[in-house]
């Protein structure tokens, strides 16, 4: 299987330049909206397909990086400065010399194919020059052309693709084009060329037989003008094929079901038959119920032999498929890899209950808290100690995690350079639990905040001591056996919620939490 090792983009959509290294197995692209996850999949799809018409349908204008076009327009606007788009797809090296060479952006001698959209300067140089002079606003998209090549400098053509791939985009899953493209691809790797051509041939002859036998009577009385059956590029086996499940065409099923079936069908092994080398999945979680998504993830996790590229917003998908496969696309044209994550941490996130790991990974500043009570109150306390600004306004994310997983998140945070304030209880020994415990896990941008007083061992105790009046006022009435503090400890979340709804104006955060709120924005 020729694996895709790397992609290098230049002036493609939002990327002026981007390099992404891929794993031979699973690659999960994560990132905020508008960070270009789909663009990466699109770049791979276009370059691998080598379909000029597909590129032209999308249009050069929407593919060429607008930032590069603007930069050109601001400059002296000469021919030699016209921006060019490049997608170089690096492949695992094989025995075919035609893919091997240095004709790529990095100049490395290796296997690969690529696509460029560049101005046709040799052909239309003087026309473009004139146009640039005559129209100070215009950009000569009309004089751009797309070219597909291999790293040996030869042409790359769609009927000789080194990597058989399929793009499943759940947002356009029921568009006619996508459906046809899907059926065509799946058909082509389920049926070997000889079988395929024989089927196509028999289908055409079947139509002719229908004309000759069934239409014969009707045609007999018609003289020179006869009815026939269309056999053409728009009407043949490939255009008429559909995929059914239990007799029902899958295009008649819901989007979610379609997405699921299509993925499953594409990944099914076919023994010695042609196989799918790469599957590109665009936000497979769309339209899927939670149960179906879990099934899908299971399917993806057990895929062997097909390289997967998944763009997703789902923590579930990316943590269950092993966070080390995740490629984080940032807003500054950079990509972080979680490959360096240790094995125990990666498996922790695969096994741990559903979590907010993606939200964490995509944040710049995070306050980690370890329980529901803290989570309920922290936003209010934050506002109180930051002149009324909300955490959201400061782009601070608050994430509640199980007490034991601080170190896991810190490892991830260190890798991604996230500023983390971790708020925890001292559990009776500040030095032991909150200092010694983390001495190997902290980094410049991460700090543990806890109460140094061993008697204030949990959040509730500290909170009670600092807000005695408010708590007594709220909870003292009706207490028979338990003290107010004992009540708060036994009913952490309920007590916190009541404090939030009834006493928020009076509440003061314990000093270590105040410190955390101050530090996170330094």
């Amino acid at each position, binding site marked *: 299987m020729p694996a895709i090792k790397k992609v290098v983009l230049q002036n493609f959509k939002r990327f002026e330049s981007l390099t992404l290294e891929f794993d031979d197995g699973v690659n999960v692209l994560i990132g905020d909206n508008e960070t270009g996850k789909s663009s990466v999949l699109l770049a791979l799809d276009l370059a691998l397909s080598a379909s000029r018409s597909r590129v032209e349908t999308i249009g050069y204008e929407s593919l060429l990086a607008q930032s590069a076009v603007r930069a050109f327009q601001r400059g002296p606007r000469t021919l030699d400065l016209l921006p060019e788009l490049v997608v170089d797809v690096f492949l695992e090296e094989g*025995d*075919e*010399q035609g893919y*091997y*060479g*240095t*004709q790529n952006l990095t100049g490395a*001698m290796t296997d690969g194919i690529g696509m460029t959209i560049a101005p046709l300067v*040799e052909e239309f140089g003087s026309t473009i020059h004139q146009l640039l002079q005559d129209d100070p606003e215009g950009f000569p998209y009309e004089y751009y052309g797309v070219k597909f090549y291999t*790293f*040996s*400098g*030869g042409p790359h053509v769609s009927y000789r693709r080194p990597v058989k791939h399929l793009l499943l985009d759940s947002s356009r899953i029921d568009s006619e084009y996508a459906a046809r493209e899907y059926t065509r691809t799946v058909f082509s790797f389920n049926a070997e060329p000889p079988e395929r051509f024989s089927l196509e041939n028999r289908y055409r002859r079947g139509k002719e037989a229908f004309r000759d036998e069934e239409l014969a009577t009707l045609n007999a009385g018609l003289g020179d003008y006869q009815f026939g059956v269309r056999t053409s590029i728009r009407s043949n086996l490939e255009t008429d094929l559909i995929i059914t499940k239990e007799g029902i065409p899958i295009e008649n099923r819901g989007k979610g079901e379609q997405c699921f079936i299509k993925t499953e069908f594409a990944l099914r092994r076919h023994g010695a038959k042609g196989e799918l080398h790469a599957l590109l999945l665009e936000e497979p979680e769309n339209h899927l119920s939670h149960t179906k998504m879990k099934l899908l993830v299971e399917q993806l996790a057990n895929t062997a032999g097909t390289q997967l590229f998944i763009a997703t917003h789902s923590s579930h998908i990316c943590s269950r498929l092993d966070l080390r496969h995740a490629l984080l696309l940032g807003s500054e044209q950079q990509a972080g890899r979680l490959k360096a994550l240790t094995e125990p941490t990666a498996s922790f996130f695969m096994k741990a209950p559903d979590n907010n790991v993606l939200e964490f990974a995509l944040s710049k500043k995070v306050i980690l808290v370890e329980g529901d009570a803290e989570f309920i109150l922290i936003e209010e306390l934050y506002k109180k100690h930051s002149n009324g600004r909300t955490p959201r306004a400061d782009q601070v994310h608050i994430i509640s995690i199980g007490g034991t997983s601080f170190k896991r998140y810190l490892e991830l945070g260190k890798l991604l350079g996230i500023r983390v304030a971790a708020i925890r209880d001292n559990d009776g020994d500040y030095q032991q639990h909150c200092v010694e415990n983390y001495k190997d896990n902290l980094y410049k941008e991460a700090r543990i905040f806890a109460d140094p007083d061993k008697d204030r061992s949990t959040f509730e105790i500290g909170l009670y001591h600092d807000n005695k009046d408010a708590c007594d006022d709220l909870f003292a009435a009706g207490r028979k056996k338990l003290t107010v503090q004992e009540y708060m400890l036994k009913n952490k979340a309920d007590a916190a919620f009541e404090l939030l709804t009834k006493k928020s104006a009076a509440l003061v955060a314990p000093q270590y939490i105040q410190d955390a709120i101050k530090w996170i924005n330094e």
Partner: protein
Amino acid sequence: MDKRVVFAVAGSGKTTHLISKLSLDKRALIVTYTENNHRHLRNSIIKKFGAIPSNITLMTYFGFLHGFCFRPFMQNEMNTRGLNFRAPPQSKYPLTERKRYRDPGGRLYHNRLAKLIEVEGLLPAVRARIERFYDAVYVDEVQDFAGHDFNLLLEISAANAEMLFVGDFYQHTFDTSRDGTVNSTLHKDITKYEKRFSKAKIKVDKETLSKSWRCGTTVCDFITAHLQIKIHSHKDRVAEIIKVDTQELADRLHSDHSIVKLFQEQHYKYGCYSQNWGASKGQDHYENICIVMGQKAWKQYEEGKLREAVAQTRNKLYVAFSRARGEVYVVSDKLFKAYKS
């Protein structure tokens, strides 16, 4: 690693010999000089294997030169767009100036590309590329390599792979890619020619393909005697060489569609089944042939002095005579004059 050049005679089974070297477990690159021969070899490979196996690559020389030796390394850097098959203009660019090799439209002069590869220091990379993908390199029609191309061939033969070049020195009819005086006397003297190979540590083999399967003893003896080109026959068949001396016989030959008429040039003007001497190279399907000679050659033939013809004419005649499986008619073009348009 065996490195050898086999000098073959016409009809001795060069193609068969090359094809016999091919197998499914040796990665082989075959380079031919002409398009005609490329097609011929391609069909022979398909006959042997049913298709072209993925471990066998067949290229024409210019496909190899551009697509294998240049493009993978330099295309983007020099912004080139293929080859220019015209002669470069007279200009005095130094060897290191890229304009010497690339025309203003971005095409590379075909006869200088081999030199460019040397000047740009790509030879080690080309050898490494050969070693990376192939166990053996086979070059057919090696006699057609001239100019810089011949030097390039010797340079790349040092790659760590089996090298087998086959060709027929006397079938060299013209240099298609000469550049100035580089190797301009290469084909003047077979002894010196052989030395170039041995100096490059390529064994010269004049035995393996020294006998013709196609031509009978008579034709071989005729070629040896009249053209002084050594050729032996596998067949002990005696076929006649017939000197045409009547207009009547000439007329019959002209209208006989089973006998090809071979002319020195402009064969199409005679309105019959015909070909030019030089262009009949590689053709293997003629039975009896008729060689039409111009006045100069005819005179030399009659005086038994054909060997004194200029090398190019002699070589073309050799090609023409050696097409014969059966009889050879030799005729003066005087007797064909009436048909010329």
